[in-house]
């Protein structure tokens, strides 16, 4: 089936079987490997992308469902050669260790601060409760997202 989808602002047209998961489409068909696969039960959020403005688990959608949609992945955070405030904040606040959950965390974080630039600890933890991390213990991820929100204001 033909799928026409805009990813990070670029339009793509591909032919895929209906059963191809959106995450595999992004990684294999489009070669964007920043979106990761961490589980097989829709539990971990490593595959998070922004789908028509909302963070979703791309392992639990079929690529054909993205026909006509707009998808944002981690590769789209950097704009015009500049890192997004959330990327800067994750670096500054040691919000990552192995980096595998990081794209998902940053996308969820960026969606949160777009809506709520000054989230409390609990609000951040609630927002990222669909994304698992094994390395950091979450504290620095929370700090990074809050810092990005504070920095983003006025930029």
């Amino acid at each position: 089936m033909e799928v026409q989808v805009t990813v990070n602002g670029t339009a793509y047209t591909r032919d895929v079987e209906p059963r191809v998961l959106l995450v595999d489409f992004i990684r294999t068909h489009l070669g964007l490997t920043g979106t990761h696969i961490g589980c097989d039960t829709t539990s971990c959020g490593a595959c998070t992308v922004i789908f028509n403005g909302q963070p979703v688990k791309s392992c639990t959608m079929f690529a054909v469902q993205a026909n006509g949609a707009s998808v944002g992945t981690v590769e789209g955070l950097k704009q015009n050669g500049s890192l997004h405030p959330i990327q800067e904040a994750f670096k500054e606040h040691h919000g990552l260790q192995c980096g595998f959950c990081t794209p998902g965390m940053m996308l969820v974080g960026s969606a949160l601060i777009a809506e709520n630039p000054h989230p409390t600890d609990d609000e951040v933890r609630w927002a990222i409760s669909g994304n698992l991390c094994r390395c950091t213990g979450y504290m620095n991820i929370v700090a990074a997202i809050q810092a990005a929100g504070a920095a983003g204001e006025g930029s």
Partner: protein
Amino acid sequence: MYPPSFDYSAPQSLSEALGLLGQLGEEGRVLAGGQSLIPMMKLRLAQPGHLVDINGLKELSYVRRDNGHLAIGALARHVDIVKSPLVPGASKAMAAAAPWISDPLVRNRGTLVGSVAHCDPEGDWNSVMLAVGATVVAVSSGGERTIPIADFVVDFFTNSLRPGEMVKEVRVPVPAGASGGAYHKLERKIGDYATVGVATHLELDGGGKISQAGIGLTSVHNHNLKATAAEALLIGQAPSDDLFKAAAEAAAAACQPSSDVRGPADYKRAVVREYTKRGLAASLAVARGEK
């Protein structure tokens, strides 16, 4: 990891969708949020031959007030319920339950109607629907019919839809007078299913007595359970700690939890008892305007 092959259609109108479902019969499956269906397909526990993707039917994406009830369309996502300004005023039990459905990413895609139709006894929404006395609106190419939720939830992953039918809308009656509700969910972590869930709904008459009572239980039977005996104890009575304790005992007695990794049956029963008490107390406080 990956589902087997299937056919896929993305109809652009409800009538097109219903036409397809009518033709496909048992082979056809509605794809809305997909947050329950797709994981099952990936594990090959469900192998539908043809998916009918209704995500293009934008007219089904609504949460609105219609004639004394809250109408939730088939494409209203869980997050839409969480964010809707109409929900807290219409149903406190719904407002209490919505944030606790799965996790925030799943809530962005999954739908309330899909959850209701799925009839997973460990799903939260049907306990709330049973407690508040919701109605399901089913459509097919042959027409439309309404089904009270207690008749709709038949058994383990089994609803009363006929082949070719899908759920278009769920209606939640909005109480006229003082009302309150709660949802107490014991879950091991965000994203897990309830070990035990208790939905409570109370309406008070002008004299402060209980005019309506609803108690819906999650994960303690092979379908979401309406604790009718417990409800009957409450209706017409003046609220009191002893009354709530008796209702809680009745709810605990009615459930049939299984012993599994989430705990032994006796424990789950004890939690039903405890959470029913807490839920009724919380619902009463809301109804009385104390919260």
